[in-house]
């Protein structure tokens, strides 16, 4: 089989890819041995492929890798990635936080607060089923008939337990009896605080409710 230059040029890329049949390959090999022009084309093409195939031909902008790494890291964080590494210390830390929080709650339930004043009295001493009176835009609950009830036209009656659940606190005047009892149960300061009510700041309503 004899091939012409034009046919060689047409097949030279396939020849370099190893994609010509053996007969044609043999014929092209023979042609290259005798044709200086075609061997020039062959070797020039090989040079092209070898030079461009070198990784040095793939230049990237300065800082490209750094920016890519940073963006990837941001994405990994946003998608919750890197969990396996974080978990090595995050889980024990979370466990410690839970334990510490649990201990604090347990402590608060057993020891009770160190009350400094009846103003801080949450009203545990008030019988929960006792009927009390609250009014709109006020913060205190009162015994019926208390002189310190403001805005009486909006009065409504409910249990002390429900009043406290709704965020009301006991009036220091009409509920003093229960507060003294409760304060004594928590702290000796309760009695002292009660004794100071009239002399220090007797009006629990301050500037009014």
């Amino acid at each position, binding site marked *: 089989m004899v091939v012409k230059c034009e046919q060689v*040029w047409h097949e030279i890329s396939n020849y370099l890819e*190893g994609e010509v049949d053996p007969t044609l390959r043999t014929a092209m090999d023979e042609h290259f041995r005798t044709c200086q022009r075609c061997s*020039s084309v062959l070797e020039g093409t090989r040079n092209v492929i070898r030079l461009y195939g070198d990784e040095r031909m793939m230049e990237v902008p300065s800082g490209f890798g750094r920016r890519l790494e940073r963006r990837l890291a941001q994405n990994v964080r946003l998608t919750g990635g890197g969990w396996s590494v974080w978990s090595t210390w995050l889980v024990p830390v979370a466990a410690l936080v839970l334990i510490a929080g649990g201990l604090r709650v347990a402590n608060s339930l057993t020891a009770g607060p160190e009350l400094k004043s009846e103003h801080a009295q949450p009203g545990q001493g008030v019988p929960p089923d006792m009927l009390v009176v609250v009014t709109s835009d006020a913060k205190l609950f009162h015994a019926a008939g208390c002189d310190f009830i403001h805005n009486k036209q909006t009065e409504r009656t409910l249990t002390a337990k429900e009043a406290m659940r709704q965020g009301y606190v006991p009036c220091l005047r009409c509920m003093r009896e229960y507060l003294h009892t409760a304060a004594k149960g928590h702290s000796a300061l309760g009695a002292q605080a009660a004794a100071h009510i009239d002399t220090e700041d007797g009006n629990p309503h301050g500037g009014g409710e």
Partner: protein
Amino acid sequence: MVLNNPVVRNPAQDAATTREQDLIARVQRGQNELFYELVKPYERRVYAAAFAILRNETDAEDVAQEAVLKAFANIRQFRAEARFSTWLIQITVNEALMRRRRERTVVMEGIDDRRDEESDYAPRDFADWREIPSEALERKEVRQKLAAALASLDRKYREVFVLRDMEQLNIQETADALGISVASVKTRLLRARLMLRDLLAAGWEQGWFSRLPFEKGNKPW
């Protein structure tokens, strides 16, 4: 010289492949922080593929980053029968092609392309040849000249050439990545290689490689 991606194994390659397979498996199991280590050897190739299609540094970098993020998001779908580098480059090409379609650039280029493919390309320079040593690429000037020659090719030739001869995808993978037939890849590849050869031969005349140790009177091809 046969370019059919021959699988010529050596211990270093085997070690690198094993290391890569190990990294892939670990990332697929959730060690996401290892993904950059997996991608790093190919980051230049990812950028080059995007740049070959978009011809704009900013767009190429953006698309390269998007492609890597997409690969990360889909790493669990990667199957070991494919090469990771090929999979990554194909994602990059796809992202770049989508970006170009969105921006509707060089729409008219395709009209003349068909005519070019129908005619054979005849080499123009037949001077004596000699192998160009790869050390030539140490010179920035040489790299710039080669890059300029590549940039001067029509888009369809440039893309096929970059994917096959620079990114080392095989013919079928190149066809798949660009959404063209294998026959078109072969035709375009032939023309791209021969045109670049002629362009570089002209560069020789202009002294691109004048400081290289060639014998007097011989061109490198």
